[in-house]
């Protein structure tokens, strides 16, 4: 009979706190619809792994190790980087690069709006994190969950849980985080700037050749980024080739949904009380916010600088859409533009910057892997 109550007797207050955190994530996913596809599995998984002697984690029984399902998923899905890379195939299949061809200059915002990654990495070193941990925290600013998980799985596996939660939570909070930063850095006159329409056909050949050449070029200059950019561009090639419509749809829907589900619940295997309830978690949450703020600032300030040199002015708010949170950020910018002038239509320009942000964030992840030893 005693064996039946072992879960109750082994329960600690830390386990209860983690279960409350799990329940909060489920609440945010269902009630507030904050990235429900990720936060719900993470929330439920957090409850699962904090039940004492939970069989979803590896347990020692009779002197031997009994493999737990989530621990196993972690080893084969995260440590091998398979789950994040499969998500990149799905994201690639969702991206339409044609708006970028219509105004290629917006591509540069995808670089400027990654500033928060590097700023936060540098700031994190001041709080006692070593360089690899600091880089993993900074990459929250990629505003791209799979990139954050990919880099953290290489550099700081102990921090994957809080980094993932911070990355996905702040992505959901983009409509709250970005507008005040943009307003602070722009005048009303700047926010009223109109941009030309984007009405030009792009050839299919161009859209097919682009992902192939980007992969080759990136691979040649930064081999560490090849897997990240390669899987993203492979997904895009499947979309654009025109002969794999079923596969493209499967990648965008079934593959994305299934791997996201597995990724979420697998990430939760790291959300145990002993790993998560640390002071470092609070720093990671705070620094993650800092990364998003400085990403936004980087994009806006770069747009203002660019306007000093170009004839066809860019609405500086577009710079903020250079982060990877797609299409949330583009929608935020469009909405802000309409609030200032209801006839100002910025959506497609913002989408272009947002798409460039997806390339930029993946590249930034690859560069971090190359530069941090």
């Amino acid at each position: 009979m005693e064996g039946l109550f072992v879960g109750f007797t082994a329960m600690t207050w830390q386990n209860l706190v983690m279960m409350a955190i799990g329940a909060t994530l489920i609440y945010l996913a269902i009630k507030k619809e904050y990235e429900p596809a990720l936060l719900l599995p993470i929330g439920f998984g957090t409850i699962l792994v904090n039940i004492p002697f939970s069989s979803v984690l590896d347990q020692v029984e009779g002197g031997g190790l009994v493999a737990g399902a989530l621990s196993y998923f972690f080893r084969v899905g995260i440590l091998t980087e398979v789950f994040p890379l499969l998500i990149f195939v799905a994201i690639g299949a969702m991206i339409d690069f044609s708006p970028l061809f219509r105004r290629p200059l917006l591509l540069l915002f995808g670089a400027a709006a990654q500033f928060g990654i590097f700023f936060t990495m540098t700031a994190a070193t001041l709080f006692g994190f070593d360089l690899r941990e600091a880089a993993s925290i900074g990459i929250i600013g990629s505003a791209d969950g799979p990139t954050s998980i990919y880099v953290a799985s290489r550099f700081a596996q102990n921090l994957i849980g809080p980094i993932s939660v911070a990355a996905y939570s702040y992505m959901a909070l983009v409509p709250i985080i970005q507008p005040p930063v943009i307003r602070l850095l722009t005048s009303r006159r700047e926010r009223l700037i109109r941009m030309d329409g984007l009405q030009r056909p792009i050839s299919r050949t161009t859209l097919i050749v682009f992902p192939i050449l980007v992969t080759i070029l990136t691979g040649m200059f930064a081999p560490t980024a090849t897997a990240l950019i390669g899987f993203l561009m492979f997904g895009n090639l499947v979309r654009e080739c025109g002969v794999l419509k079923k596969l493209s749809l499967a990648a965008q829907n079934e593959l994305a949904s299934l791997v996201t589900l597995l990724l979420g619940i697998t990430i939760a295997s790291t959300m145990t009380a002993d790993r998560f309830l640390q002071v470092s978690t609070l720093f990671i949450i705070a620094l993650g916010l800092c990364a998003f703020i400085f990403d936004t600032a980087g994009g806006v300030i770069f747009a203002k600088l660019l306007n000093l040199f170009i004839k066809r002015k860019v609405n500086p708010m577009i710079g903020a859409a250079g982060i990877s949170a797609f299409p949330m950020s583009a929608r935020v910018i469009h909405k802000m533009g309409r609030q200032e002038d209801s006839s100002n239509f910025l959506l497609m320009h913002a989408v272009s910057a947002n798409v460039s942000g997806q390339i930029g964030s993946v590249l930034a992840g690859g560069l971090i892997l190359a530069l941090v030893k």
Partner: protein
Amino acid sequence: MTAATEAVFREALEITGKGMMALFAFMFVFFVLLVLLDRLFPGRNDEAGNQVL
């Protein structure tokens, strides 16, 4: 700030400089690529694969 923290901080600063420069360099190369591809294979209104916004 301890000497060890300062050393890591300086290294992070250096990586920030290199990282941002490399990022802009890559994006510039892709910018040139976009322009070149668009010139080499101009889109036509009647092309089946066109995606006109």
